[in-house]
C-alpha cells in the first residue's frame, strides 16, 4: 500500500491546495504607520549556528531600522525547491520574498508566480549598479519581476591537493580538454576510489551539464528560433566523445553514475574527485555543506571556452503580497543582500565567524562602483588564498554568458539519457544517442508549440 505514496504526493500536494493570503492582516503600528509582517526565505539552517545568528542579528537590525515591519524567517533548505514551489505558492505557504534560480525565471514569470515589482525597485539603492544583462533576465515586457541576487559563469573547479598529490602543478590548471583528460588520468591513477573528473548523469543535472559543456565548446541546444534541437552537432558529439573516452578508455571517471546535485557535490567534498564543471559557489557549498577543506579547492576558466551558461538566482516577491508587504520585502532585500559592508556583504563578520571569504562567487554587480567596492571589501577580509581563484576571475571576464534554453527542464530530462548512455555503456553509439534525443526534443518542442 506504500506505493500509493507516489500518487498521493502528486495528488495531495499538487492538487488540493487552496489559496490564502501570504501575510498577516495589517494593523496600525504604534507610530500610526500601517504595520506589516513579511516572511523571508533562506535563513541558514540550525546546523550552521554562526550563520544563523548573523541572519537573526540582521533581522533584528532591519526591524529596528524599519519600525512597523515584522520579519519572520523560514529555514527551508534548499531555499528554492521545485517540488514544493507551486503547492506552497498556491497554499499560501510561500514566503513574501523568496529565491528563484535562473533556471526557473522564465517559468515563474510566465506563470504569474512572481509579482511585478517595477514600482518598488527604488527600494534597492544600488539597483542601477546591478549588471544590466542580469537585470534583463528578470525583466519581461518592460516589467521587473525580481532582484538579481547571484550571478556567475561556469568554470572548472579542481582539487589543488589532489593535483599536487598526482604530481600536477595546481597553479597551472588545465586550459584545454586534452589537458583535462591528462590530469584526470593522473589523479585516477592515485588509487582505488580516486576520480579524475566527475560528471552528472541523471536527475536533470546530466542534461544541465551537457548544456554547460556544449555552450563552452561554442555549440547550442536549440536553433535560434527555439523550434528545433541543435545539439546533434560536432560540438555535442565532442562533449560526449570526450566523456566516453575519459570513462571507458582512460577509466578516469570512476565506475559510479552520479544522479542529482548532491551526488557529485558529496563526492567532491570527500576530497577524492579531481575536477568538475562548476561555478565558484561549488566551493562554498562543498565546504559549508559537504565538509570539504576550503584550502584544497581552486577554480579556473572553462576549458577552451567560447560561451558560458549563465547561472544564478534572484529574489522574487509573492504575487499575493500587498503593496506594503512588497515594499517591505524589497527593503529587506536591499538591507540584507545589496548593501556594501552589511548583511551578506559584511565580510569582516563572515571572516570572524570562520566563513570562507574570498570566493568570487558572485558577479551580480560586475565592475560597477558597487561591484568594485564589494570586491575590494572581499579581498580585504579574505580568509582564503584568493589567488586560487584568479584564473577563473580572469577567464570569466572574457567569456560571453549564454542563457538557458526554453523548456530547459524538459530538455535536460531528454539529455540525461545521452549523458547516462555514454557513462554507463562502453559500446554506446554517440551518433544514435544524439539522433534519438534530437527526435524526442523536436517532438517535445513541436508539442509545446
Amino acid at each position, binding site marked *: 500500500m506504500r506505493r500509493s505514496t507516489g500518487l*498521493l504526493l502528486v*495528488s495531495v500536494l499538487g492538487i488540493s491546495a487552496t489559496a490564502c493570503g501570504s501575510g498577516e492582516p495589517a494593523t496600525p503600528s504604534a507610530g500610526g504607520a500601517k504595520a506589516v509582517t513579511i516572511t523571508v526565505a533562506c535563513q541558514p539552517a540550525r546546523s550552521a549556528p554562526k550563520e544563523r545568528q548573523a541572519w537573526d542579528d540582521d533581522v533584528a537590525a532591519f526591524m529596528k531600522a524599519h519600525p512597523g515591519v515584522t520579519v519572520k524567517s523560514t529555514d527551508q533548505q534548499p531555499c528554492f525547491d521545485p517540488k514544493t514551489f*507551486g503547492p506552497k505558492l498556491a497554499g499560501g505557504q510561500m514566503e513574501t520574498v523568496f529565491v528563484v534560480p535562473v533556471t526557473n525565471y522564465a517559468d515563474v514569470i510566465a506563470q504569474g508566480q512572481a509579482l511585478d515589482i517595477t514600482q518598488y525597485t527604488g527600494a534597492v539603492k544600488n539597483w542601477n549598479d546591478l549588471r544590466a544583462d542580469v537585470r534583463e533576465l528578470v525583466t519581461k515586457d518592460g516589467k521587473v519581476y525580481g532582484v538579481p541576487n547571484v550571478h556567475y559563469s561556469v568554470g572548472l573547479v579542481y582539487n589543488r591537493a589532489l593535483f599536487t598529490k598526482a604530481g600536477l602543478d595546481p597553479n597551472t590548471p588545465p586550459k584545454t580538454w586534452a589537458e583535462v583528460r591528462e590530469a584526470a588520468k593522473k589523479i585516477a591513477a592515485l588509487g582505488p576510489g580516486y576520480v579524475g573528473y566527475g560528471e552528472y548523469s541523471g536527475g536533470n543535472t546530466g542534461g544541465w551539464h551537457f548544456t554547460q559543456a556544449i555552450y563552452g565548446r561554442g555549440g547550442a541546444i536549440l536553433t535560434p528560433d527555439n523550434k528545433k534541437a541543435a545539439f546533434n552537432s560536432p560540438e555535442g558529439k565532442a562533449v560526449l566523445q570526450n566523456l566516453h573516452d575519459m570513462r571507458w578508455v582512460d577509466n578516469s571517471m570512476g565506475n559510479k553514475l552520479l544522479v542529482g546535485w548532491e551526488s557529485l557535490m558529496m563526492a567532491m567534498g570527500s576530497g577524492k574527485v579531481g575536477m568538475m564543471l562548476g561555478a565558484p559557489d561549488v566551493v562554498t557549498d562543498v565546504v559549508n555543506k559537504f565538509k570539504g577543506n576550503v584550502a584544497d579547492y581552486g577554480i579556473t576558466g572553462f576549458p577552451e571556452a567560447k560561451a558560458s551558461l549563465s547561472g544564478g538566482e534572484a529574489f522574487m516577491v509573492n504575487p499575493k503580497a500587498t503593496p506594503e508587504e512588497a515594499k517591505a520585502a524589497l527593503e529587506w532585500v536591499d538591507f540584507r543582500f545589496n548593501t556594501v559592508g552589511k548583511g551578506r556583504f559584511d565580510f569582516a563578520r563572515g571572516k570572524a565567524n570562520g566563513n570562507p571569504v574570498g570566493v568570487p562567487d558572485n558577479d551580480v554587480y560586475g565592475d560597477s562602483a558597487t561591484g568594485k567596492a564589494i570586491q575590494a571589501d572581499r579581498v580585504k577580509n579574505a580568509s582564503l588564498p584568493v589567488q586560487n581563484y584568479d584564473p577563473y576571475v580572469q577567464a570569466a571576464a572574457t567569456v560571453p554568458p549564454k542563457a538557458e534554453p526554453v523548456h530547459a527542464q524538459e530538455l535536460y530530462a531528454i539529455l540525461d539519457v545521452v549523458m547516462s548512455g555514454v557513462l554507463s555503456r562502453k559500446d554506446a553509439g554517440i551518433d544514435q544517442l544524439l539522433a534519438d534525443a534530437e527526435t524526442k526534443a523536436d517532438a*517535445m518542442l513541436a508539442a509545446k508549440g
Partner: protein
Amino acid sequence: MGILRRNLTAYGFLCAALFCFTVFAWYPMVREFILSFQKTDLINPPTWVGLDNFKAAVQDPAFGEAWLNTVEFTLLALLCGYAVPFVVALVLNELRHARAYLRFVVYLPVMLPPIVAVLLFRWFYDPGPGLFNQVLDFLHLPPLAWLDSSSTALISLVLVSTWMNMGSATLIYLAALQNIAPELYEAAELDGAGIFKRIRHVTIPQTRLILLLMLMLQIVATMQVFIEPYMLTGGGPENATVSVAYLMYQFAFSQMNYGQAGALGMLLMLALLVFAAIQLRTTREDRA
C-alpha cells in the same frame, strides 16, 4: 432511536474513516480528474483545455518507456514479490522451532521506513565498497553495475521492492495457511500425497481466494512504483527505470505541469481500475 444509540460508537468510527477517505483519497481523486482537463499554475484561475493534457502526456518522449518499464517491473515484482513470500510462508508454516523469531525477522524490513530501506540498498549496490559486489568478489565472481547499467537497474529495483514488502505478504499468506483444517492434510497424507502434492491439492485450493486477492493487490501496488526510482536511479540510466508514477512526479514537480501530471495519473488509474474490476469479478465468481 434505540438501535442508533446502541451503534453510536460504530457510527463514530465509521464517520472518522469516511472523513479520512474523503479528505485524503476521494477529494484528491476528484480534483485530479478535474485538473487533468485544465491548464493551471496553481495561482491564476485554471483554463479548460479539453484533452490537451492527455495528448501532451502521451506525446512525451518518456511515455512509452515509462509504461514498458512499469509493466516489466510489475511482472518481475510479481515473479519475486508474489512467489517468494508464499514459499517463505509455506516454510514458516512447516517449521516447528524458532517460528516466532523467524516471523519477526521476516517482518522486520516492513518496520523500516521505506526511505531508510532504499538508502540501505543504495549502499549495498555501490559499485565500489557496496556489500553485493564485495560478496561477488569474495566468491571470485565479477562485479555487477547494479543500478549503473540499463540492463541491471530495473531488476535491482525489483530486489529492493521485494525485500521491503515481503514481510506483510508473508504474514498474510501465513494466516491463510493456518486457517486450513489439519484434517485435509492428514487425509492427503493417508492417500499417500507427498509435500508437493499436498501443496498442489490442499494448500493452493484452500488459499485460492487470498492468493487471487494478493495477486491483484500486488499488481495495483507495484504499478505505482515510485520511491525506488526516485531515490536510487532518478529514472536512469537511459530511462531504464523511469516509471509511470515517477514520470507523473517529473511532470508535476520538475516541469511544473500539473495538468499533464493529472492526465497521466488518470491514465494510470484507468489501467489499475481494469485490474480491480478483474479482481472483483474473479472473487465474486469464486464465492459463487
